[in-house]
């Protein structure tokens, strides 16, 4: 929730990395609409794009080179990487971008569950490597938003060939980049990273150019997050943005929880989203129906949508929400208005 403010409405953020399309960031949104887009943005869309865009009157400006390979990582487990991947992935698909979400959690995959696609995964990357199927056959297309495709690395009990190290996932991303069949190369490749910093992490970050660090506002998650950020930077991934998940404004007000600004002070990373603790997250996990599809929208769903928007524009938050104001009941609220 906190998320709220994005510089894109009128002022360009100081964190915006200059990219071919970033000149348009300085323009008011109404003007941007009519401007010819830079060539990197004017891309051929798949046949489904027109359906996916319907929800929005305005589209975010895609900044940076495509496909953008983003790894979603955290260090500590259970902070919401998979939830973030599913919701941001679906938000991006709804904005009309073609997205491939890769579940790189080898031992404990669950992105397919969150997307409600668990019954449709017949082939995984391991079968592709073995030559049992082609890569395009291992990609599961979401029927709700066909511009979202899911690729799982392996089935629960099958094992990834050790000797290839992290090369396998680099090949996969390269193959997607050079794809010339129907949807063309994807705009975004989102990689859901496993917890920890062992082989699974090393594999997941190998093809990435940028990272989204998910953390919760507690000291254990923050220490792991700092470590992981350090490793990513050592590996040459300098474009790291963070999402602070499971914020409770009631606890922040009572000084029982670190505020988002405290978190930022400790990590020194630009923010793309602040996600409130929301029981709807758990419900949507149970339904296999990502939160951003909820109608009416849930608080956390709105926050994920905003985060996806900022990710597209390579933007970051300029203001964060701290605490809830006590609700003022106006005179007319008496009438039920």
């Amino acid at each position, binding site marked *: 929730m906190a998320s709220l403010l994005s510089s894109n409405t009128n002022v360009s953020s100081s964190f915006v990395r200059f990219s071919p399309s970033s000149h348009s960031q300085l323009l008011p949104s109404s003007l941007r609409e009519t401007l010819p887009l830079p060539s990197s943005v004017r891309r051929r869309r798949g046949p489904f794009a027109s359906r996916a865009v319907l929800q929005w009157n305005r589209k975010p400006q895609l900044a940076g080179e495509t496909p953008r390979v983003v790894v979603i990582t955290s260090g500590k487990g259970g902070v919401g990487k998979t939830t973030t991947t599913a919701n941001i992935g679906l938000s991006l698909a709804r904005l009309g971008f073609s997205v491939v979400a890769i579940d790189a959690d080898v031992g404990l995959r669950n992105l397919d569950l969150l997307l409600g696609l668990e019954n449709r995964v017949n082939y995984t990357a391991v079968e592709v490597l073995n030559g049992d199927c082609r890569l395009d056959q291992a990609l599961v297309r979401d029927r*709700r938003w066909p511009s979202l495709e899911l690729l799982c690395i392996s089935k629960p009990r099958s094992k990834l060939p050790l000797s290839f190290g992290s090369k396998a996932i680099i090949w996969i991303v390269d193959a997607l980049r050079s794809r010339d069949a129907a949807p063309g190369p994807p705009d975004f490749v989102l990689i859901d990273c496993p917890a920890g910093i062992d082989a699974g992490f090393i594999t997941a970050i190998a093809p990435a150019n940028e990272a989204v660090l998910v953390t919760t506002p507690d000291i254990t998650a923050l220490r792991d997050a700092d470590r992981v950020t350090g490793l990513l930077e050592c590996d040459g991934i300098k474009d790291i943005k963070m999402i602070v998940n499971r914020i409770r404004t009631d606890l922040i007000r009572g000084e029982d929880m670190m505020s988002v600004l405290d978190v930022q002070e400790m990590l020194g990373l630009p923010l793309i989203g602040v996600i409130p603790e929301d029981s709807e997250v758990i419900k949507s996990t149970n339904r296999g129906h990502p939160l951003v599809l909820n*109608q009416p929208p849930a608080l956390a769903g709105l926050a994920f949508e905003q985060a996806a928007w900022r990710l597209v524009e390579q933007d970051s938050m300029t203001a964060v929400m701290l605490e809830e104001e006590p609700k003022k009941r106006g005179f007319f609220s008496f009438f039920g208005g």
Partner: protein
Amino acid sequence: MSSISNALSFIPFQSVNHHVIPPSLLLRAGNAANIEVLWFRKCRLSWSSQKACVFRVKAVGDSINSTGSEQVEDGAPVDFAAKASDSDRRVGALRVMIISLPSFVALVKRNAGSKYAMGIYIASTFVVIVARLILSRCKIQNKHGSVAELVRRGQLRSDRRGISNPLKYEDPFNNPQVKIEKNKSKVEMCGKVYRLAPVTLTQEEQLIHQRRRSRAYQWKRPTFFLKEGDPVPPGVDPDTVRWIPDNHPFASTATELDESLAQSNVFQKDGVPFRVRAEHEALQKKLENIQTSKTEMGIKQNNVPERERSAEPSTGPYDKVEPNPSPDHGNHNLDSSGNR
């Protein structure tokens, strides 16, 4: 429960312990007596200290609720009966006060102003109540029985309903659910208002953090995975080796697949996948072998009687498989069994 009520009802009676009446006298009074108890205790408000009396009244009330007539055996109500005659005059005083109350109200009224003003007050209150009733009724009518109700109950999925109209936002930062105040000090989301604080992180601070981390964590991403105990192959920098324990999901049993083959599998864009083709070719080879051995056999057995040779076409199944299947054919089969 009864022990609590005992304790509570005990306190108020301590002061009047000297009046004792046999319990039998009270038993006939039953619950009616209990109500009188309450009324009578209230009278005592006038002479006891305020706080203590509130407690006493409450205590007796509790005992009535929880224990009912059981209380009679406590011996406490006994005290009350004795006390009744004693404080008759206090009751009288209270009655006088109640009687004098209406005149006091009239006095207030007279001071409030004209009767017209009063009339307007009453009429406007009435109008407000009626308006509220009408509004709430409209709301209920809107909600009840519509398909939206089915969605709310989880019978229908709003996103999968053909007739549902998609939500149309201007953008995620400015729509009916999200409103940011002009000066960016507050935001309203889903009907709740939150205070906003500006982000103060600067580019310099980001760089300072980056430098701190690069000092603290020096790391090189391992590019070689080896099973624990395996020898390091020649020409490999031991710093770039990651040792994988035996039980790790990556530690697969030795793969017969070589690296370039796996890579070409990943990059294969169309046609039959490698292993499927390999298996198919192996099968085909086997069939050909069988076929050739068959024909050889046939040549050898050229001198078999006519009737046996006429039965030969019935070994047809091989003929059907033999014509080398086009890649398209295999491809089609795979597509239908793929993830789509």
